[in-house]
């Protein structure tokens, strides 16, 4: 990966996913500003990057609680995006932001909430 700099991305994990991310509900990580092909990093790249570099999971790929073997977020995990340009500071369904195609901005907040556990 040709490193052309990083951008800070704020993360939040809920519904038990935090167990795989240092047990922190929130953290800020530095993410490469460009993806493997040199395009601006988007949400799909962020998920790949988190899976490969940040997540602590040593089990089988098919049981990975965060991503499927195909690299998609596991169904049942909600992805919410807090765009830093939105003044309301609210998190929106990532469907409203283009899903994986959402281009990351410095200090974008991305929240992953698993709905799969607990009643």
């Amino acid at each position, binding site marked *: 990966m040709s490193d052309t700099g990083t951008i800070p991305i704020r993360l939040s994990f*809920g*519904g*038990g*996913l935090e*167990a*795989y991310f240092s047990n922190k509900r929130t953290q800020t990580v530095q993410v490469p500003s460009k993806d493997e092909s040199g395009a601006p990093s988007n949400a799909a790249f962020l998920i790949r990057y988190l899976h490969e570099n940040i997540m602590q999971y040593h089990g089988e790929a098919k*049981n990975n*609680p965060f991503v499927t073997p195909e690299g998609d977020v*596991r*169904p*049942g995990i*909600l992805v*919410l995006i807090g765009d830093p340009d*939105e003044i*309301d500071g*609210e*998190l*929106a*369904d990532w*469907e*409203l*932001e*283009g899903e994986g195609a*959402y281009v990351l901005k410095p200090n974008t907040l991305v929240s992953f*909430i*698993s*709905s*799969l*556990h*607990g*009643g």
Partner: protein
Amino acid sequence: MPASPCALCKTSRALIVRPKNHQKLCKPCFLHVFETEIHHTITTNALFHRGERIAIGASGGKDSTVLASVLKTLNERYDYGLELILLSIDEGITGYRDDSLETVKRNAVQYGMELKIVGYGELYGWTMDQVVSQVGKKGNCTYCGVFRRQALDRGAAMLGVRHVVTGHNADDMAETVLMNLLRGDLPRLARTTSIVTKTPNAAAKMDTKDGRTDDGIEIIPDVISHTDIIRSKPLKYAYEKEIVLYAHHKSLDYFSTECIYSPEAFRGSARALIKNLERIRPSAILDVVRSGEDMAKLVPAEFGGAQTEEEGEGGCGAAQGRTGGGSMGSLEAKLREDEGAKMREVEALETEITLPIRTKGKPKSKPKKGAPTQAKKYQKQVMGQCERCGYLSSQSVCKACTLLEGLNKARPKADIGIVVGLDT
């Protein structure tokens, strides 16, 4: 991407896409629509009546926390006149419940509700820690699962409450419909899709005048037994996704643990199928629930129309303790520790053996084990009740009582894994 405006108020920024109809809503409109739909579920099914005391099976998890919050809101907004109580079950495993019970205690303060925590020790005379020290780690999950099935009913009876609500959501319902469809078990499908279920005596009472006198006054027995409980599921049509979003946008305080073990294979597969279908066609979840209801209508009453509460559906991952338990996956993981999938498989099957119980109407004479069902000429078969505790059971003594007998005789491992009727 330019922000989309809310489909209802047309002014605020949409934050939510509703799975069932793709409607894009802002936060206040979403919260209001979500609450209003549950209000409609409650009113169209006449779930409650004024003055009723309702125990909310509370685990501290997302579903029961949202249920408590919404019921509080609706009770005030529409003046239902309900007395709402939080009811939590503590299995008595050192350390395990600490976090979830702390959450429920905070909820009780936040919602201004009375909280009753009942332990297995109180209900059965045995905490799970004591069970483990008696029978060892192997097999103790069976005890935990069997005890849990009756715990909410018994807890409610201790509180003198006849009606328990649980946080089962549309995804849970769709999962159950699919599982029963794949098993070819339409009678069970019919029973489990019902929004209201009843334990034997409540069913008998409701059968006549809805538990009321001719003047419509509710008949409240002097002593409420755990065989006299109504259970209902106000979140039956609510998507899990929306429940999580509601909790998020209302900043509700809930607890979730990571499952260490995956649920039993069959249920896990049904769950995954539901979630995958939702991704492709979000309306699929409600469509499956509705299909389940339509199929239930086709099932003759004598095969399952009575919607009686039964012992079944426990085990690892079963509704994840939405019946007040909490995150069962991790609980059973903690209990199970060094046990393999084999045991889990056996237990999962074992939960299904109570199946041939159906009907309402309480037999005055206790059904003898193995006695032919005398009910051929009845509209509905006479159900079995445990001759010790009266709980619905396919055998003369229910599994909980069988296990307790074994424990009380200090006989390690009463092997109820007997798996009667297991024919797979």
